[in-house]
């Protein structure tokens, strides 16, 4: 499999990359790890005239502390997120989700910015980014803006980036004291992609649930927040009964995917079961 020929640019700075993107316009695609984009190009599902390789822009790498959490550069690989002591301490849910992505080679090369922009409806990151209320930072020649995860994923392989914008970082708040998170998925056997992946972040206050945030991937497109289930948990006692009642609402109001991997009915059932399990595990961790 050989992709159609394309041009190649390797800017050294973000400014240079933005100028190149403006010059090439819609005919350009941004390349980082390439483990999603290159298979797409080989399958000839996209025909960019030029790839802009942002892989050597130092400003886009690295994980740093911010006032309330972490800033994770777009080029940070899944392995770096998975193994980072900073991420494991501040938002272990994100590290857990990163560790469930694909296989070793994919986690070594794939990046958080690339995965988020690719917006595969069965990818693992979206569930965690939604539950963590992450903010995706986009830069353009006009400046920088933050896009909440809930607004970022707009459809299958579609995101809220405007033409000329590059995703430069992901910002996540530190998970509060008394909180616990868990990411569980039913993976498609061959690919490892989620047929249903649920990220849950539960915060306790006394014996009751102060808040619960639930991101679901693989079940519908795009990945979504299970808000009905979240609402059903707020203020409720941290009991198995309240988890079960809330989990029953995990696919409420969504239009489930239906394909040869799993029927819509099965996906809805998985969403309920995995939401209950993820909530129970998150709760267990919140109790420490």
């Amino acid at each position: 499999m050989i992709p159609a020929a394309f041009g190649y640019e390797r800017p050294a700075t973000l400014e240079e990359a933005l100028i190149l993107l403006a010059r090439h316009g819609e005919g350009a695609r941004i390349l980082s790890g390439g483990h999603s984009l290159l298979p797409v190009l080989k399958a000839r599902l996209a025909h960019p005239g030029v790839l802009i390789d942002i892989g050597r822009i130092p400003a886009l790498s690295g994980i740093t502390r911010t006032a309330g959490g972490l800033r994770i550069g777009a080029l940070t690989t899944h392995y770096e997120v998975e193994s980072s002591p900073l991420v494991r301490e501040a938002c272990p849910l994100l590290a857990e989700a990163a560790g469930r992505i694909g296989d070793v080679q994919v986690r070594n090369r794939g990046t958080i910015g690339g995965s988020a922009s690719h917006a595969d409806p069965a990818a693992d990151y979206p569930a965690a980014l939604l539950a963590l209320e992450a903010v995706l930072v986009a830069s353009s020649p006009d400046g920088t803006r933050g896009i909440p995860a809930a607004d970022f994923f707009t459809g299958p392989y579609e995101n809220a980036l405007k033409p000329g914008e590059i995703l430069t970082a992901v910002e996540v708040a530190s998970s509060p004291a008394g909180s616990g998170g868990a990411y569980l998925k039913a993976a498609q056997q061959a690919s490892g992609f989620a047929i249903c992946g649920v990220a849950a972040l539960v915060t306790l206050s006394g014996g009751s649930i102060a808040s619960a945030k639930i991101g679901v991937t693989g079940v519908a497109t795009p990945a979504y927040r299970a808000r009905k289930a979240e609402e059903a948990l707020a203020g409720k006692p941290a009991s198995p009964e309240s988890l079960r009642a809330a989990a029953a609402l995990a696919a409420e109001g969504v239009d489930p995917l239906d394909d040869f991997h799993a029927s819509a009915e099965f996906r809805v059932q998985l969403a309920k079961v995995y939401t209950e399990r993820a909530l129970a595990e998150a709760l267990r961790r919140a109790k420490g």
Partner: protein
Amino acid sequence: MATATKKKKAAGSAKKAPARTSKRAAAYTPPKKFPISFRVNGSEVRAEAPAHTSLLYLLRDLGFTEVKNGCEAGDCGACTVLLDGVAVNACCVLGVQAEGREITTVKGIGTVENLHPIQKKFIELGAIQCGFCTPGMIVAAYELLEKKPRPSREEIKAGIAGNLCRCTGYVKIIDAIEAAAGEMASSKGRKS
């Protein structure tokens, strides 16, 4: 097939055909080639390739045919090499992205004269059948043992999850990696 059809059409309109052909020839410009210099198994390599040439094709064209071409879509791991010490699928990296980088193939891990413990154990314990997955499998195992010198069997399975083998059923591969880890740990212990 497509060429045959074109010829037929050309024969039917003999006058127009040459003009069309020359127009096509003019429209086609071969893709620009980029100079690429990098290191493979410690040796400096210089090459030239269009941007859409994968690192896998580039390496094989340069004679590093120990890097196997399996699925070309990042699923099978047969083309696994170390890029600056990190295991990647060479099919999902562009050749131009290797500029200035260090590539290690299975031949950089050990040689026939001086086998690496992983290679030795693969042979001793029958972890090789057809052999096609072996180079990628050994590179993945090498990286795993760099990160985790004494992995559990579950961790070994996770470490080679990106490498498919259609012969062995994996059991002997896992045995070999486990045995290699043991040997490496004991030889390290002896040295210190």
